[in-house]
């Protein structure tokens, strides 16, 4: 078996940092993730709110969403490739399918959990239409939506890595793949470390910070 030495891994990391492969790969992956994730949020949050508010959508859309959520998002890849070829669009599609549903489900749940008193109050105060959605439903559901965003992020990240390993076209996944092809176990482990670093940073630093702020502002106990 090929085992990596700590020195080898460090050297490989430095090497990839020096010749820019690490940053190119990282940039490419993060760009894809950013696009796909942003799209998921833009589609998923309104979808979740609508499903929660429109009884017809709940009956028609929710079972589909729940069913598709049971599908590992990487399973969308073959279909995406048939549709879009081995292109950026296929990867994006998989990333979106990975996180969109989780975000929509969490949002729907969060909207349903909004204190009914607040909704009634909004009604008596004459808050309707866009103001109701943007001023009451969205902020009211925000703590729950954040949980969904976190979950969605982790799914999107997983989907991206799987897709990049299969559709080898730039990104950290490709670096990983090439490491394997070249039997370069040090590079494989070095890239894995980079992936862990990204994951931990986003999860512990970015999301933790946002969550803490929201929970404090919303006056929720921080026991989680």
């Amino acid at each position, binding site marked *: 078996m090929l085992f990596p030495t700590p020195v080898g891994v460090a050297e490989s990391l430095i090497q990839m940092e020096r010749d820019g492969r690490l940053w190119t790969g990282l940039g490419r992956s993060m760009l894809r993730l950013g696009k796909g994730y942003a799209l998921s949020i833009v589609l998923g949050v309104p979808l979740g709110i609508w499903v929660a508010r429109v009884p017809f959508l709940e009956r028609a859309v929710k079972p589909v969403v729940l069913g598709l959520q049971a599908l590992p998002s990487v399973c969308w890849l073959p279909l995406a490739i048939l549709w879009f070829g081995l292109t950026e669009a296929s990867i994006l599609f998989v990333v979106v399918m990975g996180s969109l549903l989780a975000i929509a489900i969490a949002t729907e749940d969060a909207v349903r959990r909004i204190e009914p008193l607040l909704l*009634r109050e909004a009604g*008596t*105060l004459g808050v309707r239409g866009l103001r109701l959605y943007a001023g009451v439903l969205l902020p009211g559901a*925000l703590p729950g939506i954040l949980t969904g965003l976190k979950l969605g992020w982790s799914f999107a990240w997983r989907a991206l890595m799987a897709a990049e390993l299969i559709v080898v076209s730039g990104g950290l996944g490709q670096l990983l793949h090439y490491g394997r092809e070249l039997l370069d176990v040090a590079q494989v482990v070095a890239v894995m470390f980079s992936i862990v670093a990204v994951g931990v940073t986003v999860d512990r630093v970015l999301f933790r910070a946002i969550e803490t702020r929201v929970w404090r502002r919303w006056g929720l106990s921080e026991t989680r």
Partner: protein
Amino acid sequence: MATLLPTRLWARLVPRWTLEPSRSKPGEAKIAVREVEHRYENKVEALRNISLDVHSGEFVCLLGPSGCGKSTLLLALAGALPPTCGRITIDGKPVKGPDPSRLLMFQDPALFPWMTVRQNLVFALRSKVRSRPRREETAARYVKRVHLDGFEGALPHQLSGGMRMRASLARALSMDPSVLLMDEPFGALDAQTKGQMQQLLQQVWVETRKTVVFVTHDVREALVLGDRVVVMAARPGRILKDFEVRLPRPRDPDDEAIVQYSRQIREALRSAEAPKGHAKDASAVPASGLSAGAAHPVGTGG
């Protein structure tokens, strides 16, 4: 003549006071309730044959034991619940659906937790006041009116229960509704805060003279706040008595007159419950301070 003398003194001079039934007033009523009945799906007859006139600028308290339909009537006035029978008009127009001109307030202050006190007011005002500076100015004015100045920037969860209730009151008043409907708004407060809120509400009402319908099952609270006290009874929910409270303001819950009045009202309530034998499902209703058998009536403002 009575109102010229201080209440306490008057009470001493005339040892036995009795409340008088409300007399119908001239002019068209602001709120007119005509033969309203309501049955819930589960066949509970929450209201039977309710007729009531509330005139502009009146402060009417609905008083009654738990389950007598006070909340049901208030929801019907607010348009949140269409009664199964009868007609309700406000300013001559039938009530259909909720409307910001008839604000409903509950025990729970229902402030938006992610907005500061000021933002809560400003947000509500958005549908009423177009210009932003005027909104800010109105909000500041009403925050001051409920003595919350200095807490404009506080979030609801940083305030005490009483302060939250005051913020909620400020928000409701700032919307300048023509009718204010309040469902036991002080029911969840401790005795001291409750007393302060009653004083504040009196003061604000004297300044603004809104039409208020105020639900409570605290006899003294009703007497301290109301121009009229409408006493209701349960099973079926109906109006028992409609008293007029002619006492000068500000009133104190410990006034001799109020103490005597409350005794009279409690008797009325007892007599309504005692003789009728059909309290089959009495055990299903939580024991109330107003029920005949209770050793210590709760309805004494504490």
